[in-house]
């Protein structure tokens, strides 16, 4: 229960999860539970078929939004972490070499650390002080030895840096390697064209910039690759087959799907198809406004690319005297401003930009915020840091 007199919430934690969601998302989830409550792919009665149609429609909607040519190559997952685990563990074998950026989230770092103990060779390419990965450096590292895959985020959840994933696709493919992209901080916050990008794997959460509910994500797998599935089980058909069917998307979606979550994500994708360009434009304007304001506060260091350079709507700061968790607490308690302090599940990234010890205070800008909200947050920061 909220404390008496608590201020209204001003939500700046979109890099963790977006809030609020468009009404269409809630409506679609309610409809999925009420009107399509059967088990998708299990049985041919009306509620089961309605659930299956809900998922088919959602897959098509998300595929169109992310420019995936063939919807069956887009797998629904429980989130970006599951998608990345599927691709990384399903494709890499002991002895394989991976070139990975130093800006990766633990959703990449931890699976790789586990695989490294099993004999996968992991070579890390360090980012510059702004959290940017240099494609030329990646190319040189890839050329040093046979490489199975290059793994890089599309945008950083710590610095907002946008990485040159298109160039990395060319570099990887020229070396006979795959490119796997963590798109958690990019999808919905910028136009993502997976078909044009050339990535072999592209994973995203559904609940951040894509504005869907938590518990659902998407994973694009190029038709040329056949990663092992992360789990085996019921697929709704071919039940006599003792092994997991190889058909997509069934192969990678064993077990009952999260139909309400997928319905919500599908509705969010349709919402973004109509409103996404405006949301992206507003996010950029608010990010620039916030950045300019933060630069004017004494004692604050703003992480990430310099002003004027394109970035994801993420602004992390470190104060020279006040610990970031203290600022986060005051923002929440006294102003109702929700931010995230700490390491953001990305110790590699913080180490890269020199904030592993201090952590940082992160403002994640997104859907529903206004210029007035940004000004309010800046005033609060000035009061706390002044």
């Amino acid at each position, binding site marked *: 229960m909220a404390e008496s007199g608590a201020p209204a919430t001003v939500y700046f934690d979109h890099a963790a999860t977006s809030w609020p969601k468009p009404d269409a998302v809630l409506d679609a989830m309610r409809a999925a539970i009420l009107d399509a409550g059967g088990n*998708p*792919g*299990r*049985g*041919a009665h009306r509620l*089961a*078929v309605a659930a*299956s*149609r809900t998922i*088919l429609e959602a*897959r098509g909607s998300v595929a169109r939004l992310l420019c995936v040519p063939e*919807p*069956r190559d887009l797998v629904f997952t429980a989130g970006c972490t599951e998608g990345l685990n599927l691709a990384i563990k399903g494709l890499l074998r002991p002895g394989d070499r991976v070139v990975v950026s130093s800006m990766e989230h633990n959703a990449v770092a931890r699976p790789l650390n586990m695989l490294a103990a099993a004999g996968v060779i992991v070579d890390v390419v360090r980012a510059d002080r702004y959290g940017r990965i240099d494609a030329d450096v990646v190319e040189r590292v890839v050329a040093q030895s046979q490489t199975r895959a290059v793994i890089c985020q599309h945008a950083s959840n710590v610095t907002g840096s946008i990485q040159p994933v298109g160039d990395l696709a060319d570099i990887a493919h020229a070396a006979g390697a795959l490119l796997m992209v963590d798109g958690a901080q990019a999808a919905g916050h910028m136009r993502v064209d997976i078909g044009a990008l050339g990535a072999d794997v592209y994973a995203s959460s559904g609940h951040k910039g894509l504005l869907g509910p938590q518990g659902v994500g998407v994973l694009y797998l190029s038709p040329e690759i056949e990663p092992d599935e992360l789990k085996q089980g019921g*697929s*709704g*058909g*071919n*039940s*006599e*087959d003792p092994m997991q*069917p190889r*058909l*997509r*998307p*069934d192969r990678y979606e064993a077990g009952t799907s999260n139909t309400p979550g997928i319905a919500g994500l599908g509705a969010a994708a349709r919402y973004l198809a109509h409103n996404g360009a405006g949301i992206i434009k507003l996010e950029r304007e608010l990010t620039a406004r916030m950045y300019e304001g933060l630069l004017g506060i004494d004692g604050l260091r703003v992480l990430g690319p310099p002003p004027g350079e394109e970035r994801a709507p993420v602004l992390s700061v470190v104060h020279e005297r006040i610990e970031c968790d203290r600022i986060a607490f005051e923002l929440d308690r006294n102003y109702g401003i929700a931010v995230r302090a700490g390491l953001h599940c990305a110790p590699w990234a913080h180490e890269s930009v020199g904030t592993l010890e201090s952590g940082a205070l992160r403002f994640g800008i997104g859907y529903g915020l206004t210029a007035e909200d940004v000004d309010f947050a800046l005033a609060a920061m000035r009061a706390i840091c002044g």
Partner: protein
Amino acid sequence: MSSPQRRPYVVFGFASTHDALSGEAALVAAGLQLTVMPTPKSLGALCGIALRLAEADVSLAEETLARAGVAWSGQVRILDR
């Protein structure tokens, strides 16, 4: 009371629910009438959803599915009400 006359239908089976419902969407868009039904056991190990069409529409249905890039995995003729 006399039972309704049985009519010839063809049931299309699919390897996956994704194929079956993609096929349904394509066939409906082409103006074909169909019924979603459980896959007859005679079609073998496929997904649980099949599409039943009037026998007279089979050729058009096959062309429509081919144009939509949807593969069907089996057909069986049935008499049904």
